[in-house]
C-alpha cells in the first residue's frame, strides 16, 4: 500500500512538473467590436504572435455587449482581457470608473503621428490628460452626393447648409428624385445626423460650463433647416440611404465613409460636411468624429505584453498593412503615404475632415443624453411636437440626465 502511494505521488509530481515546465504560449485576449474590426485584427496578428510566442484570441461582440463585458470584467481581480476596443463616446464613463490602464504612467509616450483629434479622444480629460487609449480605427462623417444628379442640376458641391437646401429644392420631386436624405431614426442615428448641422449653425449641446444650449436660437435655426431638408427629401435608414445616393435616386446625404467606400472605390462622391449656415456665415468645424479606440483593462494579467500588442496594432506599419483589408488609419503618415493615397484617394478628404472634426460631448452621461435628444429630435421631425417645444423638452431631459 505504502509503495503504491509513493509511486503515485512520484507520478503526480512528475506529471505536474512537466506540465509546468512546458513553455505554454501566453494567451492574449482582445475584446473587440464584432465585424470588420475582428477581421482586421485577425489579418495582422500573425507576426506579433510569432515574435512574442503568444496566441491572440479575438472576441467579437456587438456594441452594448462589448461595453457590458468590459464593465463586468473590470470587477474581477484577474482580468480576462488584455486589450479592449471602445467607441470614443464611452471614454468619459470608462475612465471615470478607472477601467483602463493609464498608458502615460506606464511609460507610453504620445506619438505625434496620430491625427491630433483622434489622439485627443484617448486622453482623459479629453485632449489634455494622460493617455488611456489609442485610436485604432478612424472614421468621421462626410457629405455624400451623387455626381450625376448634382451635375444634371448644374450644381457645385455645396459648402453651406443653405447651399445644400437650395440643391435639394432644385432636385426634389423632379424625375422622381430625392433632394436630401436625412437619417431620422430615433436615437444615435438622428443625433449623429443632426449634430453637424447644429454645429455649422454655431450651436452645440453644451457650453464650456455644461449649461444646456439645445434650445438656443442657433439650435432652433439648425433644426428648422433640418426639417426643411426633410421637406425636400426623405427620411431613410442606413441601407436605403446608401443605395439611394449611390444609384442616383437621391442627391445628397451625410454618412460614414465605411458605408460607401469599399476597397479604393466609392459608390458616391464625398466631401467635407459644410461648416457654415449660409455662404457668408462664420465657418465652424462640423464633421462628427467617431473612432474606435483600444485600451488596456486595468486588471489585465499581461501588462507588458498588452502594451506591446497595443503599440503594434496601432503602429504605422500595421495600419498600412491593414488598409488592404479595409481598415481606416488614424495616423497622418499612413493617410499621406504615397502608395496608399493612390490606391485609396479618399484618404486626403478623410484626413482633412478628421482634423476639422468635432467630438461628441465628453460626459459619462452621453448615452442618456443621446437617448433623450434622439427622442425629442424624432418628435420634432415627425411633427408631433413643434421645434420650440421639442427643444425645450430636450433641454429639460438633458438637464435631468446630467444631474
Amino acid at each position, binding site marked *: 500500500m505504502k509503495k503504491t502511494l509513493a509511486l503515485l505521488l512520484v507520478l503526480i509530481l512528475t506529471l505536474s512538473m512537466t506540465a509546468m515546465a512546458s513553455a505554454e504560449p501566453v494567451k492574449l*485576449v482582445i475584446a473587440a*467590436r*464584432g*465585424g*470588420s474590426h*475582428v*477581421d482586421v485584427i485577425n489579418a495582422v496578428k500573425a507576426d506579433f504572435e510569432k515574435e512574442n510566442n503568444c496566441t491572440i*484570441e*479575438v*472576441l*467579437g*461582440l*456587438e*456594441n452594448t*455587449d462589448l461595453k*457590458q*463585458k468590459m464593465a*463586468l470584467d473590470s*470587477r*474581477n481581480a484577474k482580468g*480576462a482581457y488584455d486589450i479592449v476596443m471602445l467607441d470614443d463616446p464611452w471614454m468619459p464613463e470608462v475612465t471615470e470608473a478607472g477601467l483602463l490602464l493609464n498608458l502615460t504612467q506606464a511609460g507610453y509616450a504620445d506619438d505625434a503621428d496620430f491625427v491630433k483629434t483622434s489622439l485627443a479622444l484617448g486622453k482623459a480629460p479629453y485632449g489634455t490628460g494622460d493617455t488611456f487609449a489609442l485610436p485604432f480605427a478612424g*472614421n468621421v462623417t462626410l457629405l455624400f452626393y451623387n455626381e450625376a444628379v448634382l451635375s444634371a442640376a448644374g450644381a457645385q458641391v455645396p459648402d453651406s447648409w443653405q447651399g445644400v437646401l437650395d440643391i435639394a429644392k432644385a432636385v426634389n420631386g423632379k424625375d422622381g428624385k430625392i433632394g436630401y436624405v436625412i437619417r431620422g431614426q430615433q436615437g*444615435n442615428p438622428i443625433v449623429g445626423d443632426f449634430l453637424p448641422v447644429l454645429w455649422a449653425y454655431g450651436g452645440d449641446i453644451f457650453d464650456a460650463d455644461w449649461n444646456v444650449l439645445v434650445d438656443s436660437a442657433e439650435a432652433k435655426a439648425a433644426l428648422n433647416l433640418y426639417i426643411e431638408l426633410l421637406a425636400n427629401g426623405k427620411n431613410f435608414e*442606413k*441601407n436605403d440611404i*446608401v*443605395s439611394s445616393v449611390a*444609384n442616383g435616386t437621391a442627391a445628397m446625404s451625410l454618412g*460614414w465613409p*465605411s*458605408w460607401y467606400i469599399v476597397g479604393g472605390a466609392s459608390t458616391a462622391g464625398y466631401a467635407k460636411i459644410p461648416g457654415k449656415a449660409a455662404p457668408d456665415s462664420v465657418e465652424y468645424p462640423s464633421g462628427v468624429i*467617431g473612432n474606435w479606440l483600444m485600451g488596456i483593462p486595468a486588471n489585465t494579467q499581461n501588462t507588458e505584453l498588452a502594451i506591446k500588442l497595443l503599440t503594434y496594432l496601432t503602429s504605422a506599419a500595421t495600419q498600412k498593412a491593414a488598409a488592404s483589408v479595409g481598415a481606416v488609419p488614424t495616423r497622418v503618415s499612413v493617410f499621406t503615404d504615397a502608395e496608399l493615397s493612390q490606391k485609396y484617394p479618399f484618404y486626403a478628404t478623410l484626413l482633412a475632415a478628421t482634423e476639422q472634426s468635432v467630438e461628441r460631448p465628453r460626459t459619462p452621461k452621453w448615452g442618456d443624453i443621446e437617448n433623450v435628444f434622439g427622442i425629442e429630435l424624432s418628435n420634432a421631425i415627425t411633427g408631433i411636437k413643434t421645434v420650440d417645444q421639442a427643444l425645450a423638452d430636450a433641454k429639460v431631459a438633458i438637464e435631468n440626465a446630467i444631474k
Partner: protein
Amino acid sequence: MRETLVSRGTRKLLVAVFMVWTMFPVYWMLSLAIRGGGELFGALNLLPRSFSLEHFADLFNTKAFDVAIGNSLQVTLISLLLALLFGMSCAYVLARARFRFKMKGAMLFWVLLLRILPPIAFALPLYILMSDAGLLSTKIPLILSHLLINIPFIIWFMITFFEALPIEVEESAAVDGATEHQLFTRIVIPQVLPGLTAVSILAFMTSWNEYLYAAIFVQSPSQFTIPLALSTLNSEQELTQWGNIAAGGVLSLVPIALFVLFAQNFLIVGLSGGAVKE
C-alpha cells in the same frame, strides 16, 4: 340546416392565403441566402437570378459558424435533457393529487412566478453569482441559466398533461403491485409522450434562440452560440450583410426544423392533450 357561411372553395383559398402569408418571409430569407452577392444590391426579383453558396461558405470560413453550431447543440441538448428529466419528475408529483406534501402549494406558486419574471432582470445577478463561483470559463453558467428558463415552463406545461390522464390506469396498475416509480416510468410517461414531444420542441427552440444569457456569460469566441454569432453581422458603421444574415438564419433553422419534422406526429396530439380541460 343553413348553408355554410363560406363556400368550400373560398375556405380553401383563405387557408392558402394564410399559408403564403406565413411562409413567404421564410422563403424570402432562403432566397436571400442563396443569391450571389452582386444581386443583393438594388431591386430584388421574386425569384433568385443567381445561385451561390458563398454566404454559407463565408459564415463557416470567416465567422466560425461551425463552432457556434457545435456550442449551440451542446448547450441546448444538455440543458434540454436535464430540464426534461427534472421538470417531468417535478410536474408529475405536483399534478397527481395523491402526493400530498406541505410544500406543494408554495412550489406551484414559485414555478408560476418564475415563468413570469423577465430574464433581463436576472442577467446581472446571475453573472455575479457565476463569476464568484469561478465558472465563467465553462459552459456551465449558460446551461444553468437555460435550466432556469425551461424548467418552470416544462413543469407548468406538463402539469396540465398529467392532470388530463385518467387516474384509473395508474390505480389499477398500483393494485397489481406496481411501485410508484414503475407507475411513472412504465405507465404514465408512455401516455404523455406526445405532450413530452411538444414541450421538448418548444423548450429546444427557447434554448436555441436564447441571446441574453449567452451574451453576458461568453468569455471567448470558442464559446459562441448561434444567436451571438448572428448578432455581430449587424453593425452600425457598416452596411448590413443581408446574404450572411439570411444564410445564418437558414443554418439556425435547420436543426429545429429537422427535430420538428420527426416529431410532427406526436406534436399536435401532444398539444391537444395538454390543452384539455382541467
